[in-house]
């Protein structure tokens, strides 16, 4: 029942295209500033499209130890990789046990998770609790305390509960124990949920600003988000100074822009390949938990 394309269709396509563009124009603008030559920026010659295209600003801010960008990227990468592994292991195994009817205390444990999720303890009690456990200036603060995010625990549990019972019954008859049911039956068929929680946790750790800002005070341990906020918003007063390298002038503007792009790069690169898992995440989550 195809109808002819009317005025509404054209206007609709136009509106949607504009919406799509508006979503990414700020990112593009930042990227264009970063690759422009500073002398055009100073003169106000760059309105949107880049002039004097080069990658010098990236190389300079990334390699100059004074800005800690490289340290920040390295730290964030380590925290993200370790944190994602720990999160997935803990979230999945906890969710798995909490779906087993033989475990009588599962309702109590789940209720406590939900209760402490809905009732926010607040920053200060968390700070006091974690610091008394030795998490100040300790990289594990990025990995251990938030390993189980209750929201993802609910999603994972809902997903595992949706698995057909027949799946494991045959294995139980064959005398499989709980470990082998988990590793040989559940994990292979629930890969999509594992990918989803891995991605959500990974993104959350990479993007985290408040937790490292509260606990990681040593320069060598800071994350890329902390370093970025410091150089762009000046939370601790580090600023870029104008300089000229290989005839290309670098100033505050294109160096800040380069730092911003570096801080979002891993997510933008991964995005096209993983967006279907991101989409799944909210859909599983929106089904009853």
């Amino acid at each position, binding site marked *: 029942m195809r109808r002819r394309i009317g005025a509404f269709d054209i206007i609709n396509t136009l509106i949607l295209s504009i919406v799509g563009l508006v979503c990414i124009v700020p990112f593009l603008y930042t990227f264009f500033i970063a690759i422009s030559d500073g002398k055009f920026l100073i003169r106000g010659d760059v309105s949107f499209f880049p002039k004097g295209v080069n990658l010098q600003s990236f190389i300079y801010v990334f390699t100059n130890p004074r800005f800690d960008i490289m340290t920040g990227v390295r730290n964030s990468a380590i925290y993200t990789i370790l944190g994602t592994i720990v999160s997935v292991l803990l979230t999945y195994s906890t969710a798995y046990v909490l779906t087993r009817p033989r475990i009588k205390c599962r309702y109590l444990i789940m209720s406590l998770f939900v209760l402490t999720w809905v009732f926010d303890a607040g920053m200060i009690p968390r700070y006091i609790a974690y610091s008394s456990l030795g998490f100040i200036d300790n990289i594990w603060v990025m990995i251990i305390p938030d390993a189980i995010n209750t929201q993802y625990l609910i999603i994972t549990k809902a997903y595992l509960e949706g698995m057909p019972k027949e799946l494991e019954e045959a294995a139980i008859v064959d005398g499989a124990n709980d470990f082998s049911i988990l590793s040989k039956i559940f994990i292979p068929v629930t890969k999509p949920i594992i990918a989803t929680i891995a991605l959500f946790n990974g993104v959350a750790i990479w993007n985290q600003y408040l937790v490292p800002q509260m606990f990681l005070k040593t320069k060598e341990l800071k994350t890329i988000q902390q370093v970025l906020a410091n150089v762009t918003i000046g939370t601790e007063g580090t600023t870029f100074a104008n300089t000229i390298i290989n005839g290309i002038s670098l100033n505050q*503007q294109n160096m800040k822009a380069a730092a911003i792009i570096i801080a979002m790069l891993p997510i933008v690169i991964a995005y096209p390949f993983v967006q279907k898992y991101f989409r799944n995440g909210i859909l599983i989550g*929106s089904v009853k938990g």
Partner: protein
Amino acid sequence: MKRKNNDTRLLPPAGLGERLRRDVLLNWRLYVLLLPGVVSLVLFKLFPVAGMVIAFQDFSAFRGITGSTWVGLENFQRMFTDKYMLTLISNTVIIAILSIVCVFPIPIIFALLLNEERSRVVKNSVQSLSFLPYFISSAVMVSILATMLNPSTGIVNVIIRHFGGDAVNFMARPEWFRPLYILLQIWQTFGYNAIIYIAGITAINPELYEAAEVDGCQRWGKMIHVTIPGISTSIITMLIISIGQIFTVQTERIILMYNPSNAATSDVIQSYVYRIAFQSLGFPDYSYGTAVNLVKSVLAFILVIIANKLADRFAETRVF
């Protein structure tokens, strides 16, 4: 409990100890898997909640929770006489209400428009672009905002000057904080929240559209009579959830956007608590900060519980 050990062959078996022993023997593998989860629940989720007792103390970091003096409701009394508290609460609530009024309808409109789009390529690519910002960090988003709004070099002020206006230092002006916060909120969330509505629209029975066509409905009529009723459950659920989370402001974004010159509108409960604890000179007043936060948490908790009940009753979905 009176123990009857004389006849263990009959079911149910005797004592609690014996039942526990059998349970552990049978399910020890599951308990091993559960252990890390329980440890993290106790240490990282329950312990901080217990730590909230410092709201009733004059907490000193040197003496710890057990050694600090108890002061009863003193911190709460101070709160109700603190004039600044009124500013904080009104800032928090205004931001929350604006977040619902201005942000909530946008993903619905977007999903409806997307549903009317004929070209698959446009539909898919626009949708993919729309939820990318959800996964970008607050630090990056606020940095981009600051770059674009820079008084001397930012594109917005370049345009303003081009048309003969005076540059505005947007990030330092209290009257601009709320619009900018809401703008970021829309930019970061509309595409992601639209996913739920889009899935809802896809699930609508196509026969309903055919029936509407037989009844003479045009495109507009089908949207009003089929599509919107079809996703009304999702809309109600999402609305109730967002009302429940009225106190959950984007703390990171606010802390990053906050500066003393825009404090009149940008200071909310969380940013105030954060500053008390981490940016004050001298001894931070942990107890007062916790008391302020406790009141917020209790109100937020009640709202979430009510919202969950309402969602259960009116939309037959629960958040938990």
